[in-house]
């Protein structure tokens, strides 16, 4: 056990991320600033072709209502197409392994799961999906759901920073998010992953004959291409049931680092993009800093907790010098597992390289808390929007204390915005705690728990938290492929995604039309350390206090009673 090496590994990955934030953030700004730039020459013609193909003639600004409606309808159409394919995949092409049609409630759950960027999987990819479904439904949704999140962030940022009445054009934003950001990055990363031994093939399952003469089915498929967008799009649904702990999805420490960076880079860089749009880079860095502080705190907790290992094993004299390695891959170790867990739940990707169910109690508290906050980097786009919502809330509370009507980036925060923000902050605890309580009231819910006691509370709580935050990782101990879990988590994922998106686009739509209040010495500044502290305090007081009682009953009680 060498914590020095561990620290070095972690610092190197964080250092790499810091190198990416500025160039990628700037690039994303140029994509969506809609001002002529160099990348037009490469992507312009392709986009023109797409616009012509989809008959997009009117590319003007949209009001927030039209923007939100276009987004919802586009998502609806994609959902219906995908739902149809899942229900009929047996008869569709590219099904060399003869996989059957998906059960309706599971299809419902799966399609919502992927459309909402959650990628909660109540099925196992290798046995539940044909290659056609993997590529057309799963991979397509991985692109479109990530693009949806990104354009929401862009529209929200525009609402805060531009003058006028509209938030931009949804369709051009949506197309550009694919053509200029997600597709090029995914292609490059796929090739890199293939180079690092991740399989990419349409061949059927390989039959292997073991030395003892048994035959073994080894599932393969177009893994590398899925792997790249799975992380870039903060999606997280694995090709295989074992997700990124599977050696074909994540063969070695190098791919592990790449996957961490892939899922982290866009949410982190969007803070820089926000600074560019706000014409004040400090605004972006403050948001980034607050996210990073929370990130570092949670990473430390999970790392220390996993390193210390399980006190029960320690007392019975087992060798735990490696830390708690149950459910972890030896090729990654504690540091790479802890970092992966923290990144995948802060960026709400949901891909896992170790089993969160087997984390130590306080280690398991970390992914759960990060998803409950849902603002530490967060999923592509939505994480930033959530954090900015907290920023508005912080401004409202603290702004009053300087004796002025609170204003954020020169816009007054008034009852209309507060109403919409109220909806957005209410929905998160409601759809986590409500269904959790319901699950415990019925046998349908509590029957799925495989590990009763305090850990059982964590299992259920984790499932709904992961659904609500559109994360998708599971405390995999739960027997969750039942109509009850398929339907309830499906509804939670749906509400978790769209209620806050629509409400916050409404906030942006209202702010964009407001008069700008010029900045004076009497203005409450949102680009200094003091505000970082206020924002941090608001996130902790309002975001975290809500969940404290259940966390005490779940992981904290488990921790206290263990050993």
């Amino acid at each position, binding site marked *: 056990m060498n914590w020095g090496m561990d620290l070095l590994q972690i610092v190197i990955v964080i250092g790499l991320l810091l190198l990416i934030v500025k160039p990628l953030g700037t690039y994303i700004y140029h994509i969506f600033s809609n001002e002529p730039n160099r990348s037009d020459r490469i992507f312009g013609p392709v986009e023109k072709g797409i616009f012509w193909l989809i008959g997009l003639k009117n590319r003007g600004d949209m009001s927030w209502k039209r923007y939100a409606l276009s987004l919802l309808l586009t998502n609806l159409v994609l959902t219906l197409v995908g739902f149809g394919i899942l229900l009929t995949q047996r008869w569709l092409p590219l099904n060399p392994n003869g996989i059957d049609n998906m059960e309706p409630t599971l299809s419902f759950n799966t399609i919502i799961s992927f459309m909402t960027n959650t990628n909660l999987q109540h099925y196992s990819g290798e046995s539940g999906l044909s290659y056609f479904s993997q590529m057309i439904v799963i991979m397509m949704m991985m692109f479109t759901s990530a693009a949806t999140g990104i354009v929401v962030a862009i529209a929200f940022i525009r609402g805060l920073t531009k003058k006028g009445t509209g938030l931009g054009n949804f369709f051009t934003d949506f197309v550009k998010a694919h053509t200029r950001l997600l597709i090029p990055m995914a292609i490059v990363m796929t090739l890199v992953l293939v180079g690092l031994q991740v399989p990419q093939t349409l061949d059927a399952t390989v039959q292997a004959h073991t030395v003892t003469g048994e035959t073994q089915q080894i599932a393969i498929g177009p893994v590398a291409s899925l792997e790249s967008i799975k992380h870039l799009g903060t999606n997280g649904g694995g090709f295989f049931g074992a997700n990124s702990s599977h050696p074909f999805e994540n063969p070695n420490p190098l791919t592990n680092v790449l996957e961490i960076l892939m899922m982290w880079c866009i949410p982190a860089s969007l803070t820089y993009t926000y600074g560019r749009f706000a014409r004040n880079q400090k605004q972006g860095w403050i948001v980034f800093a607050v996210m990073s502080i929370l990130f570092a705190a949670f990473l430390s907790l999970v790392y220390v907790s996993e390193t210390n290992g399980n006190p029960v094993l320690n007392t019975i004299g087992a060798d735990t010098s490696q830390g708690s390695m149950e459910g972890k891959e030896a090729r990654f170790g504690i540091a790479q597992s802890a970092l992966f867990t923290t990144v995948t739940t802060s960026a709400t990707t949901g891909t896992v390289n170790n089993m969160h169910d087997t984390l130590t109690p306080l280690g398991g508290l970390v992914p759960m808390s990060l998803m409950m906050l849902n603002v530490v980097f967060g999923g592509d786009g939505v994480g930033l929007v959530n954090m900015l919502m907290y920023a508005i809330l912080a401004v409202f509370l603290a702004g*009053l204390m300087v004796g002025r009507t609170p204003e954020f980036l020169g816009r007054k925060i008034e*009852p209309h915005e507060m109403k919409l923000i109220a909806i957005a902050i209410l929905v998160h605890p409601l759809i986590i705690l409500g269904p959790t309580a319901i699950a415990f009231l019925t046998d349908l819910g509590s029957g799925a728990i495989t590990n009763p006691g305090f850990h059982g509370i964590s299992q259920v709580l984790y499932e709904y938290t992961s659904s609500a935050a559109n994360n998708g990782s599971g405390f995999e101990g739960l027997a969750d492929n039942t109509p009850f879990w398929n339907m309830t988590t499906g509804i939670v994922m749906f509400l978790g995604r769209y209620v806050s998106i629509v409400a916050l686009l409404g906030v942006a739509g209202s702010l964009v039309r407001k008069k700008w209040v010029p900045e004076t010495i009497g203005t409450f500044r949102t680009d200094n350390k003091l505000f970082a502290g206020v924002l941090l305090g608001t996130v902790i007081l309002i975001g975290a*206090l809500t969940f404290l009682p259940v966390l005490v009953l779940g992981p904290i009680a488990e921790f206290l009673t263990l050993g």
Partner: protein
Amino acid sequence: MDSTMKRKSLITSDILKYALGQSFVKLNPLIMIKNPVMFVVELGTFIVLLLTLFPSVFGAEANFGFNLTVFIVLLFTVLFANFAEAIAEGRGKAQANALKQTKSDVTANKVQPGGGVKQVPATELRKGDVVVVAMGEMIPGDGEVIAGLATVDESAITGESAPVMKEAGGDFSSVTGGTRVVSDQIKVRITNDPGESFLDRMISLVEGAERQKTPNEIALNILLITLTVIFLIVVMTLAPIAKYVGVDLEIPVLISLLVCLIPTTIGGLLSAIGIAGMDRVTQYNVLAMSGKAVEAAGDINTMILDKTGTITFGNRMASDIVPVGKATVEEVSQWAAVSSMQDETPEGRSVLEWVRKEGYTFDDKIARNAEFIDFKAETRMSGADLTNGWKVRKGAIDAVKQWVLDQGGVIPADLTDKGNKIASEGGTPLAVAVNDRLLGIIYLKDTVKPGMRERFEQLRRMGIKTIMCTGDNPLTAATIAREAGVDDFIAESKPEDKIAVIRKEQAEGKLVAMTGDGTNDAPALAQADVGLAMNSGTIAAKEAANMVDLDSDPSKIIEVVSIGKQLLMTRGALTTFSVANDVAKYFAIIPAMFMLAIPEMHVLNVMGLGSPMSAILSALIFNAIIIPLLIPLAMKGVAYRPMSASKLLSRNLLIYGLGGVIAPFIGIKVIDLFVHIWI
């Protein structure tokens, strides 16, 4: 200012009696529902009462003593919140009652169409009626003087004991109902129907009857309701989840947790803060037409101030005497004084004052029986013809120069230069001459009121830009602007210019405040976000403005801005305090709830509270008594000193944020030490 500010003691026994009564009246759920946070507490109180009286109804394990105590503490929480609101209202009511007394039983001498006068009750007067008010009588309603001239005692409205002059026409024609004529007789045309007069509006405003929630108050209320609903979800879902691990949570315990977590502190004090804010404005003798106007004052970015009367005294005063030719200062001073001995104009008096102040002497016998010559527009000079035949004149340089030349005198060569220099500095030069000798120049200038510079400095620190409007030429305006320390000025301004400036500033997103009194100020007062009219001004100006200063002191707008800021700050500070309190309450209640079933939870009992029950009750008691403890703060407002937003925020965050986290840890621990003696 302080002389006119009638600081009343915070609470009188009458107000206290009224507030105690109202605390119970307001328990009525129909009234309570207007305050959703406290309504939830009242609902919880009711449920606990039922559980206490009929423990079997809910099948709950009856712990009569505990349930009864919870009920009592909850009831007091609601009563304390009601009391806070009632006491703020009570102060307004007391003021209103005093005003109502001035209103009652006035009879009016109404002029009949035929020409006779008939006595009618004041309440029967309608808009357009004409009344005659003689010496010693009460003016029966708001109106305009159409004939006559009288002095009027307005102390009932303004608190200012010196009577003011009112006459037909001009800017001093408006009179207010409820004031008394103390000399002469006037004819007044009534301008309001009954119930709409200034006095009526003032009564309903201070009573709080017309109180509407301001946008900021509504937004904050939404946040408070949201927090309440969130914690409602938290508490309601906790029971089934806890049951899974064998923890049975009783309803009174859950209600206690809920009440502790929802923002009752700010919820209970919110309306008191609003009412008290309006009240503070009223105590400065400013009548705000709405709470919105007071809050808008806190947001002001730009303030437009008239030079005359606001920044300067408004009359040019002697500030120096400059000899020309071979004359000495003593000589000029003496003759300047002699020429002004019977001069009743402010300029003339200021010359005498200056000469005395500077210690120059003059022989006043010389002017005995002299014939004084008043200033006339044609001659542009005034002075005296002495008995010894000498003639003394002072006046415009051109006029005096001509007069001296006419008498065969010689004009000193340095006169023109010295005169121009004074003019270029914004002053007014007055030449002084005796017979054929032109002796020197009196330097007259408008004087900035003392303390204005510091006030503009304060405004700058608040981030407020000041613009001075004046009819003076640009040079004069620049001098005064520099002397007073305003940020910008508009010279030779016409009433339209003010509106133009307001619109321009507003187009940049700024909020603008201005003061005014004349009818021609009315459009600008209406356009401004905060318009403060002078009570001495015309009805039109008062109608257009959203605040009226009863003392007619235009610089008071600065106080109004401070009050507006203080109001918002108090709200923010108490909200932060209230939310920050939750941390400690969690640490008190959560271990207490679970400790019986999960003994290991005791490590979370960081305060070392005596027993689970005592912990819950202590948190609940702290939650209740913090409301009355903070009433004085809610009424007075948090201390405000002009400083930059960042400094202000750090300071308030430290006191109310950090203080809000720490205070309940100490408070709950102390309460627990007592409570634990019994349980």
